[in-house]
């Protein structure tokens, strides 16, 4: 018995030494990985900053001193939004009749829809008045400092209301429809400065309303000139790059819990410390991918679009990988921007044609490139009107088909 005790006593220290080493080695591996990923991230952030690109959401939307005009416009937008917050209670079920007025052509409205549109516009005249006053002010943005602001959603609601007014006035062939659609364009400009990635939400409606107004009301030369100025300012080639730079700044800000702002104490959350190298690795991988996307955004159309052609934008299904989601977001931004550019350019060409018609001169059509094909935009005339169009996402000329191509067709009035 004494011998057995003696054996156990002499073996234990050696076993403990090996056990301690077996525990220490994974810790060393974890620390090495943690350091390597943190070092890579710092090098990446330094390289981004050296290029003058934003590494922080604060740089995308910097804290700045608002002008008196900004404050006044923001105040009016807020007041309009507060008054309008309940204007379209059923907007969450937009296809439910008879309130689907926003999603159907006003020429095809039933009498019930027309009645509803009249009621909504007249009961919100104060709101529309505030919108008119706000858009008349040179506005550079809402008070900054938030990553996402509900104010944007409110402005979107205001745009819908302004769109409804434009449609009503246009089908009645009232000249004030021109002013109303101009207000919509100015709202779009305000949004473009703040949230370029949401530009497409507005652009689609505004292009339709503009076509309706041009076809029904026939704006004067000064009105067309002002449309042209706003559309030309909006037809910026850097919108998609700004969007992608914002996405990357968001990744760097919030991609890893160990980097996210507002964390009280990282040491208090052991699980986060444990998974930190993997988090940092993911941030590095996503930032690498986004750097590639930013480089794609510098390519001309349609190569910019081709770079994302193979990305599947179908439903996610079970795929919840951060990289896949960011790839989806970038591809979606580029495709939406292609459509925005196509809509803006078709509208610009249509306005150039209208200006020539009003002044009885030969049209000087601006040489604008179709983002989907890289070729000039196309124009097709018929007995009733004309269609300016881009070949659309299928890259095929479908002769100005309303759905297969991206079209701008001044809607002729059926009434004499």
């Amino acid at each position: 018995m004494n011998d057995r005790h003696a054996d156990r006593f002499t073996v234990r220290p050696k076993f403990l030494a090996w056990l301690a080493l077996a525990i220490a080695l994974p810790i060393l591996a974890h620390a090495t990985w943690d350091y390597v990923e943190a070092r890579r991230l710092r090098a990446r952030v330094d390289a981004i900053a050296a290029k003058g690109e934003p590494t922080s959401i604060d740089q995308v939307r910097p804290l700045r001193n608002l002008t008196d005009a900004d404050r006044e416009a923001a105040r009016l937008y807020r007041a309009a939004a507060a008054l309008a917050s309940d204007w379209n209670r059923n907007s969450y079920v937009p296809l439910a009749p008879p309130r689907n007025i926003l999603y159907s052509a006003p020429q095809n409205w039933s009498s019930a829809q027309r009645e509803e549109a009249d009621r909504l516009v007249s009961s919100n005249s104060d709101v529309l008045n505030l919108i008119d006053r706000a858009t008349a002010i040179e506005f550079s943005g809402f008070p900054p400092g938030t990553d996402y602001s509900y104010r944007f959603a409110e402005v979107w609601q205001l745009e819908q209301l302004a769109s409804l007014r434009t449609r009503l006035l246009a089908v009645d062939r009232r000249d004030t429809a021109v002013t109303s659609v101009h207000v919509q364009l100015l709202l779009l400009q305000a949004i473009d400065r703040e949230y370029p990635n949401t530009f497409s939400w507005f652009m689609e409606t505004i292009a339709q309303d503009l076509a309706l107004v041009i076809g029904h009301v026939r704006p004067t030369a000064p009105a067309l000139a002002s449309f042209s100025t706003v559309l030309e300012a909006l037809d910026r080639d850097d919108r998609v790059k700004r969007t992608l730079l914002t996405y990357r700044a968001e990744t760097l800000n919030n991609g890893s819990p160990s980097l996210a702002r507002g964390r009280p104490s990282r040491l208090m959350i052991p699980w986060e410390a444990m998974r930190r190298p993997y988090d940092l690795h993911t941030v590095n991988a996503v930032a690498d991918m986004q750097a590639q996307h930013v480089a794609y955004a510098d390519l001309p159309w349609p190569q910019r679009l081709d770079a994302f052609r193979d990305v599947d934008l179908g439903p996610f299904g079970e795929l919840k990988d951060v990289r896949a989601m960011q790839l989806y977001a970038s591809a979606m931004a580029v495709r939406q921007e292609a459509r925005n550019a196509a809509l803006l350019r078709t509208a610009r060409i249509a306005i150039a044609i209208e200006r020539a018609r009003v002044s009885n001169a030969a049209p000087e059509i601006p040489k604008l490139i179709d983002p989907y094909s890289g070729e000039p935009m196309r124009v097709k005339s018929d007995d009733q009107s004309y269609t300016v169009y881009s070949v659309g996402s299928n890259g095929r000329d479908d002769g100005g088909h309303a759905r297969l191509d991206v079209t701008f067709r001044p809607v002729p009035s059926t009434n004499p």
Partner: protein
Amino acid sequence: MNDEDLERKLRRFRIVRPPERLRVAVVDRGSGPAVPASAWMPTAAALIAAAVLYWLSAYERAAVRFSVDQTPVVRAVNVELVARSLGGGRQSLLVAKIAVLLDEPKQETTR
């Protein structure tokens, strides 16, 4: 029974010396299979290296955080500005800190 008899009887029960193997294990450990201090060196080195790497990683992350989150920098500038406009001093600094924190825009993910 005299002392000698007593001593003779007690000697029958007295342990003169422990068994040799036990004695070696207890008294003379140096000559047995015990682990030398150097066996702990790799573990110690690994732990020290890990601690240094964690420290370096924290340094790198702090540098990154400084670049990607400039809220503390902006806040410090604002606090100084407000404190100066309040006349300076400890009390002004205290009030300025509270005023700046209250004035900061908050996250507005919900209404």
